[in-house]
């Protein structure tokens, strides 16, 4: 773990050394902190989007299941996590559940104590609820004949889902998923309110030293850059999906 941390520090030192001279003075003075934060944001984004996509897919499949209880549970999952603000969810878990303390939480305490772990979990759950809705919409656009054909070929429902419905649903849902990814990236800034030193957390702590509005502008540029990169990446994937 510390090797990984060293690697991150090495990256931010390297980036800042390279950026010396071409970046404004106010930025250069705190450059390693911005880049450290940027890497934490990136790390949370990659992990939560990957985990959220897996959970969201399961929830979407549950929503079109033949079992009523499963359908209802999946509906409630999406409804609750999409119907409440992300910030409230973060605070419920970190300040609410976390307040139960080590005696009541037992072996779960290390998780609730860590803002990073709570942030990752809540971001994952939140985005999974949105992804499930998007995928469900994608499955809904497919003609019912597809499932019937798969079943009449002797596929099980699970196999039909894996091989026939989901791949097509992903293709249909990709642009909407791209939007959700950008929203997740922006939402991740809220983990700074539960003590995580992501880009926003670092920005706020730098701001607290000098009260210079520039601080927020630099961070805005970094976020916008990340959004631009994500958009470009999503477009490239979309192109590939269209060819297939």
């Amino acid at each position, binding site marked *: 773990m510390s090797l990984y941390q060293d690697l991150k520090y090495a990256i931010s030192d390297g980036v800042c050394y390279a950026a010396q001279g071409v970046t404004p003075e106010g930025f250069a003075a705190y450059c390693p902190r911005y880049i450290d934060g940027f890497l934490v944001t990136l790390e949370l984004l990659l992990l939560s989007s990957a985990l959220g996509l897996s959970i969201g897919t399961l929830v979407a499949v549950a929503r079109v299941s033949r079992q009523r209880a499963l359908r209802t549970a999946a509906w409630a999952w999406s409804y*609750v996590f999409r*119907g*409440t*603000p*992300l*910030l*409230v*969810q973060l*605070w*419920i878990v970190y*300040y*609410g*559940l976390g*307040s*139960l303390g080590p005696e009541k939480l037992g072996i779960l305490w290390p998780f609730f104590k860590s803002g990073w772990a709570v942030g990752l979990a809540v971001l994952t759950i939140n985005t999974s609820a949105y992804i499930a809705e998007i995928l469900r919409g994608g499955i809904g656009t497919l003609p019912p004949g597809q499932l019937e054909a798969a079943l009449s070929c002797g596929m099980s429902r699970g196999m039909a889902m894996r091989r026939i419905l989901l791949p097509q649903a992903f293709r249909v849902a990709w642009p909407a998923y791209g939007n959700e990814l*950008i929203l997740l*990236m*922006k*939402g*991740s*800034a*809220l983990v*700074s*309110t539960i003590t995580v030193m992501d880009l*926003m957390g670092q*920005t*706020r702590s730098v*701001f607290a030293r000098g*009260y210079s*509005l520039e601080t*927020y*502008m630099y*961070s*805005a540029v970094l*976020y*916008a*850059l*990340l*959004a*631009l990169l994500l958009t470009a990446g999503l477009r490239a994937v979309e192109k590939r999906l269209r060819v297939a």
Partner: protein
Amino acid sequence: MELLGFGAEGWGDDLLRGAALTVQLAVVSLAIGLTFGMVLALAKLSRFAPLRWLAQGYTLFIRGVPEFLILLLAFFGTEKAVAAGAALLGLEGGIEVPKFAAAVGGLSAIFAAYGCEVIRGAWLAVPNGQIEAGHSVGLSRWQIFYRIRLPQLWRIALPGLGNLWLVMLKDTSLAAVLAIDELLRVAKVAGEVTRQPLMFLLAAGAIYLLLTAISDKMRASFEARANRGMAR
């Protein structure tokens, strides 16, 4: 449980007052955001290229930057502006920053950036032939806008704007970080005072869920009304 009740001991009335401020924040931001969004949409449809670029750059910026950061920028930005203005007038310190106004400014700036795309799409979705027909029967430009374009634009834009409303309603919770006494902050403070943060934060979550559920119902009825007379 009596902590959630009303009266001197309970925090129920404080939570309700917080919820009222949340709704107020969202409604005022919606009104300003819609107006600004309409202006941005017109700028994007303009024949004057620099105006289009300006609007394009604005939406690109807002869409790429976290809502939280925009709100903080609006908050500290107005603080600086007010302080600078006061210094210019020769006043010194002690000027209350209008926190509510700053939050409304930030929220409506975000709403407008997304809303203008919805409005622009709806504007273009009204068939040109109808506009030409309006001209040919001698309607003025204003009459064409008001009688032909707007009612249909409204119908087409409603689902998209409804979504944005829900997003903004939830984004008002960020105002808690700016120490505005809306729902989430009241719940946080109540939890700290009574040492029952879980209960109060869950209560706040439940109220937010209720607000979004009501909004959803209202959107459905608005849509039904806007679509009356349309073939299904």
